[in-house]
């Protein structure tokens, strides 16, 4: 899949919360390149003095009709803090699309897309694509509190949404792994979120005999498979998350704890 270095204009910065922004971007010139669900972009952060490298951010949603690319960003440090300060009209430079994508399930399979915190990001575009392919996805979103459940309306527009919050302010109280939705039968579970959450979901998936793919967020320098910094130790040895991932089947990972 051909990669590009492109300037985008910020069409809108939707402040979802103190910590989160949804950036809606449009290419300064031309139309969006082809992108697959699960892929990510490398963002140059021109408005942070202390950010040197690009930052990897998942493709949250692609609206080819409007020529819009959505990035959902959580303030983690200086780089993401600067990104959520971007205003409409600002320019953002991206390298994209990067990485592999989710495996398309066979027709008729029951699939659950689960995300924790900002880990919901890739699930929106994936959900949309699944629906277009005729698979009705169901979602399971988890967060600490109601305010951290992001893009709820957008997810609802695609499929059924189950929610877990740690403080019980929305949906079931507890972690996603204890959500009642997980006690149903699933052929395939897709998961993105903090590592402990993904490991816990992977365990549940194994126990209910579901296939499971997770999206890893290893520290990256290049995002292109050139620097070998982002490696994950897999059954095949060290592989680059930025090229052979970020999506991995849990059976290829060494998470067998």
């Amino acid at each position, binding site marked *: 899949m051909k990669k590009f270095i492109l300037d985008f204009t910020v069409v809108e910065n939707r402040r979802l919360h103190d910590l989160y922004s949804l950036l809606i971007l449009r290419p300064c010139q031309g139309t969006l390149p082809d992108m697959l669900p699960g892929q990510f972009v490398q963002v140059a952060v021109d408005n942070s003095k*202390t950010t040197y490298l690009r930052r990897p951010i998942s493709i949250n949603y692609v609206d080819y009709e409007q020529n819009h690319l959505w990035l959902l960003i959580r303030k983690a440090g200086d780089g993401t803090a600067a990104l959520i300060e971007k205003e409409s009209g600002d320019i953002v430079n991206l390298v994209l699309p990067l990485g592999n994508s989710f495996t398309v399930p066979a027709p008729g399979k029951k699939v659950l897309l689960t995300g924790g915190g900002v880990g919901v990001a890739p699930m929106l575009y994936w959900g949309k694509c699944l629906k277009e392919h005729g698979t009705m996805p169901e979602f399971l979103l988890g967060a600490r509190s109601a305010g951290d459940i992001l893009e709820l309306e957008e997810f609802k527009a695609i499929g059924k949404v189950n929610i877990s919050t740690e403080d019980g302010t929305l949906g079931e109280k507890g972690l996603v792994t204890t959500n009642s939705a997980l006690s149903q039968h699933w052929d395939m579970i897709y998961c993105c979120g903090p590592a402990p959450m993904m490991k816990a979901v992977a365990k549940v998936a194994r126990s209910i005999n579901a296939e499971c793919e997770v999206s890893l967020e290893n520290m990256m320098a290049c995002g292109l498979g050139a*620097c070998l910094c982002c490696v994950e130790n897999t059954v095949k040895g060290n592989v680059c998350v930025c090229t052979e991932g970020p999506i991995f089947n849990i059976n290829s990972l060494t998470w067998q704890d």
Partner: protein
Amino acid sequence: MARLNVNIGALKLKNPVLTASGTFGYGEEFADFIDLSRLGGFIIKGTTLNHREGNPYPRMVETPSGMLNAVGLQNKGVDYMIEHIYPRIKDAGSEVIVNVSGATVDDYVAVCEKLAPLDAINAIEVNISCPNVKQGGMAFGTSCSGAAEVTRAVRRTYPKTVIVKLSPNVTSIAEIAKAVEAEGADSVSLINTLLGMSIDVERQRPHLSTITGGLSGAAVRPVAVRMVWQVAHAVKIPVVGLGGIMNGRDAIEFMLAGARAIEVGTANFIDPAVTIKIIDYMNDYCERHGVDDINDIVGMI
């Protein structure tokens, strides 16, 4: 663009812009962004005799205007490279240079023997300066005797252009360069990474699995320029300069300091098309300053 032609020993480059080993993969990773045939050449990943898994994750952390890495020479070994990668890149249209590493002198020699017959490879860069491996690596590069020993052995084995890559983690890099020159190296390249370290103060543990790692990027440029200038005044063989080159201005800075060619490393991560911009800048610079042959500005300082 004939005015950008430079020679490193017998190696003829169409322009002085190379890419630094370990930062440009095997070139292919950048083919969507740039026309590889426009480069002076590209230096591929550190290659060792045998497959190496490299160091455990985490391997990198950002630092002010730079980054630390602890990759540890992950690669599939020279045989795999020759069989699977070489055929794909040998016709890229610019010089392909292999960066060679080893834990023992015999390792270096064994890799060089395998590389010597490859028609499309006209030069190697001998890495005696990797800070991220336990054995060999930087150990050879931090003493004149160690540097000389590797160079002597490689020189005996490898008939084409030998560039020896020096470590900046030394008291006198000029002394090491002289030792390497005396053993017949065709060129020296510098700098490899500075040994550095970074700690996550909240978790109270190092950011890298190996505790220390190699510092690269703009932050190291003043040190690299100084060392290139010192070495260029100490040896007669051509010097290849690198360390923190982010743009055309920086590349010219190294050439004024004495570099005949330059390598672009970390900057490739920030702008995958930066090398082409540097070549274009060099041309503009020559135009602007009335320079007919870029060799004329090498070592002006």
